Structure formats: C-alpha cells, structure tokens
C-alpha cells in the first residue's frame, strides 16, 4: 500500500541522519515510539516527540531501555507500528526484548546509532562495534534483519525498508546507524506519499473460530491479530505451539525455532541488499558498510587510479549476511578487504563465506573516528599482491 500522506514530509530537506530516520519511520506508518535518552541517538525520538502529536500517535519516554523495548511491543499488539531508538549501552539492555520480539514474532524496529564501546565508551563518537550484538545479542537461536545506512538520505529510505521488512517477516529489524551517519547533515529528498511503498501488517482475515495465532501456510510467517478484536489469542515468550500455547517438548521447540530461522533464511536473497561496483574485473573486493563505506569509496577510487582492479561490495543488509554473494566472488577474486569501525566483526562472516577460496584482510579501527582512506588503500595494495 502507499504511505499515509499525514506522516510524509514531502520536499527537499537539509537534515541529519537521526532526523531523517525519524521521518522515515513516520512515512513508514510508525505511530508509536518509546525511548530513553542516549547519545548519539536521542535526536530521532526528540523529532518524533515533536512531530507525532500532529500526525496522530504517541511518544513516551520510558524509565529505562528495558521498558522502552517492551512498551513498543505492547503498542504493536495494540495495533500500532512502533520502534525504539538507542545506542550501545541501551542496546545492551534491550537484548532480552529483541529475543522476545523474535520469539513472539512482533514486527518492530530497533534503531541503534552506534558509538564507541565497550561499556560507556565514547558517547559522542562513532563505532560499528554492535554488529555481532545485533545478530547474536539475545540468548537462543533466532534470526533478525539488520540494515546499515551510509547517508541521511538512506536513513530515510532504509528506515521505511526496515519497517516494511519487519511487517513482511514479523521480525525485529535492527537499524544499524553510527554516530557519523546520525549526525551528518546532507540533502534528504522525501518523495510524495503516493511514491512510497509501505508494507501493511499481515493481519489475519480468518474468523475467530478458524484463527490459529501461530499457524502458517507455506510462507512460514503467521497472520497476526490485535488485542481487542475478539480473537482471545495468547502470546508468550515460552516455546509455543500453533495455538500460541506453551508446549515444553523438543518437538515443538524444533518446529518453532527452525521456522523462526527459516522464514528469514529462506528469503535471504530478497532481504540482502547490496551495492556493487567494478566487480566484473575485480581482483580485490572491499566489503564495507555504514559510514566506513564512504571512506572506503575514496580508497577504492585511489586504488583504481593506481591501476589496481579493486571493486566495491557495500552491505546495505548486514544480517542475514549475503554469504552466497561472497562465496560466488571468492571463486574469482584474490582477496577481500574489510574495513570496519571495530576490531574485526563482519570480517569473520566474509572469511567464513569465502571458505578459504580467497584471502581476507581486516582493516580494524577501534572507533572514535573513521579510517584514513590511506589505511584502506594500503590493505587494497597488499591484497592485490597476494
């Protein structure tokens, strides 16, 4: 369906990534946010708090991130599209509720504007060190989707995608910004509402008698009902059967947890968004995401100026990881260069997917700033000689 024009601020704006993310959420139909202040993410909900009473919805500042990350799920079951916004320390506190959203199949979006860690770390400075936490931070086996914008424009565009994917697959979607992207101000074009595609909730059309809250028909994603509609459904974080009833058996566990994984894994080709350039003749491929992809672009240009056949693979979707794409490239390139604002996280996935068919060079950075393009260039040159 098309976006509701009330939430869409059509026009050309000069705003930062945090504000653009908020506009993306409103355009996607988000009418509920629960938050707790934390640098460098707070601007997203500050803007939402100012905007949402004029479009029909609610912002509530909760007492902590645990509360924010579950209040939004209550709102989803009450019929809203909802999200929360945080940074590293708050993201750590939200982990239990990412698991709850995965287990109860509550469509929602968690925005993490990454800063340096561990612990309080670097509140005002960038990092990309929550990437593994986004994937594995809650206990148990589950799948999530994670998107990585590299500009304010993408903070707008991809926030809409994040909500759309959350609704389509009934999963929590991690929106993995970083401090630079969040605070960088650039031109953001917001199109008219009738040019914005929005995925509606997968609401059941079944009668109360026929409805099975966690029953599926082939596509692995169950239909949802909202509280107050008469369905008398039960939602639990316990292992549950198709009725939503707790069922503590290995058989029910196996069926449920495999479905939670497969509904995302089976659609990975569609979910994995990438941007590529110069891959056809590449000896070396730079794999990057978020703000680092913009620094990497400079290094790639410098490398090509020097005659190195270097290509670009930008991860717009970090999770599920585009392992097929990496495997395919690994069979025909010499090496991958993976710069990231952490001491080596997504590079492990590249290495795993390359399966020793191509070499992998990590270009780590502990955060607090971005790479110097020369560091990435040096790795490109080294990789081209391997």
């Amino acid at each position, binding site marked *: 369906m098309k976006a509701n024009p009330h939430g869409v601020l059509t026009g050309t704006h000069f705003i930062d990534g945090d504000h653009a993310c908020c506009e993306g959420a409103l355009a996607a*139909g988000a009418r509920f946010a629960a938050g707790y202040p934390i640098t460098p993410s707070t601007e997203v909900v500050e803007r939402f708090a100012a905007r949402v009473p004029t479009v029909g*919805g609610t912002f509530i500042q909760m007492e902590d991130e645990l*509360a924010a990350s579950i209040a939004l799920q209550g709102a989803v079951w*009450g*019929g809203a599209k909802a999200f929360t916004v945080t940074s590293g320390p708050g993201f750590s506190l939200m982990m239990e509720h990412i698991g709850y959203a995965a287990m109860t199949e509550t469509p929602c979006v968690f925005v993490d504007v990454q800063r340096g860690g561990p612990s309080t770390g670097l509140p005002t400075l960038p990092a990309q060190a929550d990437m593994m936490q986004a994937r594995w931070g809650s206990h148990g086996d589950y799948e999530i989707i994670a998107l990585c914008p590299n500009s304010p424009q993408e903070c707008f565009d991809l926030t809409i995608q994040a909500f759309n994917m959350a609704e389509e697959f009934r999963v929590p979607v991690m929106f993995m910004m970083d401090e630079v992207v969040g605070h960088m101000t650039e031109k953001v074009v917001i199109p008219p509402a009738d040019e914005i595609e929005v995925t509606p909730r997968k609401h059941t059309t079944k009668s109360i008698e026929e409805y099975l809250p966690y029953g599926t028909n082939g596509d692995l994603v169950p239909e949802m009902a909202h509280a107050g509609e008469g369905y008398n459904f039960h939602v639990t974080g316990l292992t549950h059967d198709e009725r939503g009833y707790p069922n503590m058996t290995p058989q029910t566990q196996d069926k449920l947890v495999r479905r939670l994984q497969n509904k995302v894994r089976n659609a990975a080709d569609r979910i994995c968004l990438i941007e590529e350039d110069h891959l056809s003749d590449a000896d070396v491929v730079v794999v990057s995401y978020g703000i680092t992809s913009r620094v990497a672009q400079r290094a790639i240009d410098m490398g090509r100026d020097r005659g190195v056949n270097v290509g670009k693979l930008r991860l717009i979707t970090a999770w599920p990881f585009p392992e097929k794409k990496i495997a395919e490239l690994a069979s025909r390139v010499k090496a991958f260069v993976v710069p990231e604002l952490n001491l080596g996280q997504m590079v492990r996935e590249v290495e795993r997917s390359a399966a020793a068919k191509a070499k992998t060079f990590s270009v780590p950075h502990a955060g607090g700033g971005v790479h110097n393009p020369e560091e990435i260039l040096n790795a490109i040159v080294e990789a081209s000689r391997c």
Partner: protein
Amino acid sequence: MLNVLNDDTVNPVEPFLRTDRMPHIWCPGCGIGTTVNSFARALIESKIDLQSLALVSGIGCTGRVAGYVKLDSFHTTHGRAIPFATGLKLANPKLNVVVYSGDGDLSAIGGNHLIHAARRNIDVKVICVNNLIYAMTGGQTAPTTPGHATTSTNPYGTFEPAFNLPHLVEAAGAVYVARWTTFHVRQLSRSISEAFQKKGFSFIEVISPCPTLYQRRNKMGDGLDTMKYYKEKSKVKNGAPTSEVGLTLNGEIAVGKFVDRDRPDYQSMMRAQYHESLGERYIEEPETECVCG
C-alpha cells in the same frame, strides 16, 4: 455466555478460562487459582466488555495466569508486564488492560516500572499476587519476604527489610490501592470490580499462600492452616494509612481498601497538554489505517 451463567451444571467462571489448557501448573493449596476465580467473578459482576479486556503477565507462578484466561493475553518477560501494558494501552486507549503478576516480578525486577507507571498514572489495573517469595524458582527471598522468614537463599532467616507494597504504590501515585488475602474471595472480587471503575493506576495486592515453599519452610502448615491464619490474623482497615500496613512474619495482616482518590491519568494529561500547546494541529486519535491498510 449468559446461558452458561444461568446453567448451574457449569462452573460460572469456566467461560473465562482456557479449559483446553487444564490442568494448570499450580500446586495443591496454592492461592493463585483462587485469585483467578475472584477475578473471573469480578468480570461477571462488573459486566465489563470482555473483547476490550487484555491481560498482561510477567514471569513466575502468577505470570502463568495469562495463559489460562480466555482473553487476549500476553505472557511477557520477567518484570516487564507493566511497560508492555503501558504500550498496549497507549496504542489502543479503548482497551481495558489488566496486569496480573507476582510480587517478585512486579516489585523486584519490575520495581522501577511499578513506581513509574504509578507516577504517570497509566490507566492499568495491577493485580499483584503476593506469596512473599520467589515460588517458580524454588523459594528464594523476595523484596516482600518478611524479616526472619526462612527461604532457600536465606536459610538462616531473612534480615533485609521488606517492601510494604501499598505504601510504595500510594507514594508513587496510584489512585486505588487495596489488599486482601485469598481468604477474602468476595472482597477481592469487589475490589477488582471497583478498580475497573477507576481511571488510572490501580493496585490490588492479594496475600496468597505458597504451601510448597513458604509455608512448609516456615512451618506454617498447609493450605488450610494458612486459610485459618488469614481468617484469624486479618483485620479490615479500610482507609488505614499505608505506612502502617507493613507485613510481619505470622503477624496481623491489614486488609481493605487503603486508597481511593482521583487524579488525571496519563492519557488525559497528555491530551490536555497537546490541546493547550498545539490547538487544532493536535490529532488525538491514533491513525490505525497506517498499519493494516
């Protein structure tokens, strides 16, 4: 359902239960089922629209209530029933939202949410079944365990001061605060019905036995002995200052309605503020067509 209510061969609370989930997990002599019976009777008495009613629980023995009631029901994470209920109520203000959980869930791990929901005066009704202990996990000390009681984590007796929950929630801002025991089934039903009439944060504490872990370890006998204790040691003190209703081991249990006052609930305050500041720019009703098309 009304036909069932007039049929004396069917238990009148049965239509409110997921009978396909019986038998339940609670122990013989446990008081939680008794509270559910009183809750169901309150639903009958108050004639509340069941379709509008959602029940939210946390984790623990009482947390399992959500799974047994035939309502839209949510078994959430440990301590977080109240913030989940907050989101549910704010997204759909037409819902009547009940939080049904235990003392450990609501006042220890969820203690921060309890006081903030009371402060905001979120329009949810909290039924707190207080068995003075962590029961599901084997009888550990709770913030409500009276001094000197023996628990699995205080095998030589507890020595931490306990929370007086009515005092805590009154201080934080609750508009309705009552306490009963599982002996007071009719009074409990009445209080629940009364709370449904209140707009704002209501808190009903129900003192309930855990014969398996609390009564046994403290040599208080079985479920029946506990009923006798509740009968003999309970004293109705409607309107008593909540500062004076703290519990002690084997001591008097002050019961009754302690607080019944009015102040604007969160959503009323929010709407008033937005109307004042934004005038006609304020859109009061959430836009549901953004979700389902």
